[in-house]
């Protein structure tokens, strides 16, 4: 299922609705890379609230999205990682590296607005 991406001012908000296949995740990466240029976005939010599992492929792809968009001049914030998902990720040894995170969409938007640094 293709992830809907909403344009809001200078921001793009990708809100994941259900479990994604590997192909869906790669599609999201490509869509965001293209749209960020088309709409001259400088802030991207990827809302993962609906993901009940984030395995190594998902984490690697989200990290790649953040790095790719950085090269396109935009800042990416991952929002909505569920507590159980965070626990499983840490136990497995997965990290988001220097990717920005926020508790939810509201906090994510605030982070983009303020530009304040809340790295992992």
């Amino acid at each position, binding site marked *: 299922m293709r992830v809907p991406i909403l344009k809001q001012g200078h921001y793009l908000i990708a809100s994941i609705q259900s479990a994604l296949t590997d192909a869906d995740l790669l599609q999201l990466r490509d869509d965001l890379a293209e749209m960020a240029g088309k709409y001259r976005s400088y802030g991207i939010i990827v809302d993962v609230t609906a993901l009940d599992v984030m*395995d190594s*492929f998902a984490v*690697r792809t989200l990290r790649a999205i953040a790095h790719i968009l950085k090269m396109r001049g935009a800042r990416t914030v991952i929002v909505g990682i569920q507590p159980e998902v965070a*626990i*499983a990720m840490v136990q497995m040894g997965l990290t988001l590296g220097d990717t920005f995170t926020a508790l939810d969409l509201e906090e994510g938007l605030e982070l983009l607005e303020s530009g304040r640094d809340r790295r992992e």
Partner: protein
Amino acid sequence: MSETRVSIHSDADIIAARRMGRELAEGVGFSGSELTIIATAISEIARNIIEYAGNGEIVVRQTQQGTRRGILVIARDRGPGIPDIELAMQDGYSTSKGIGLGLPGSRRLMDEFEVDSTVGKGTTVTMKKWVA
């Protein structure tokens, strides 16, 4: 004892496998984060089947040892096999496009973990988790 099995042929089957694993684990008595941990481990070994063997299957069943109840997950393929299991179990070692966390990561998520592999014949990963 309940048992379910999912054929793994495409990345969509990875989602089906972890979903059925979570459902069965819920019936066994696992809760919250443990369900997510089991689903994540299944996701990793299912992806290994796709990446290295192309197809295979995942079997999930309830298991018991004395009074302990748990879940048993078996991932089987007839792929190329793993020449050096010790190396494959190391963090960051990968012969595919992955980040090399599939096997060592799943081992950290589960209580028991075993890899049985013969080059040219295939690989079987067996893992267990017990209800706390």
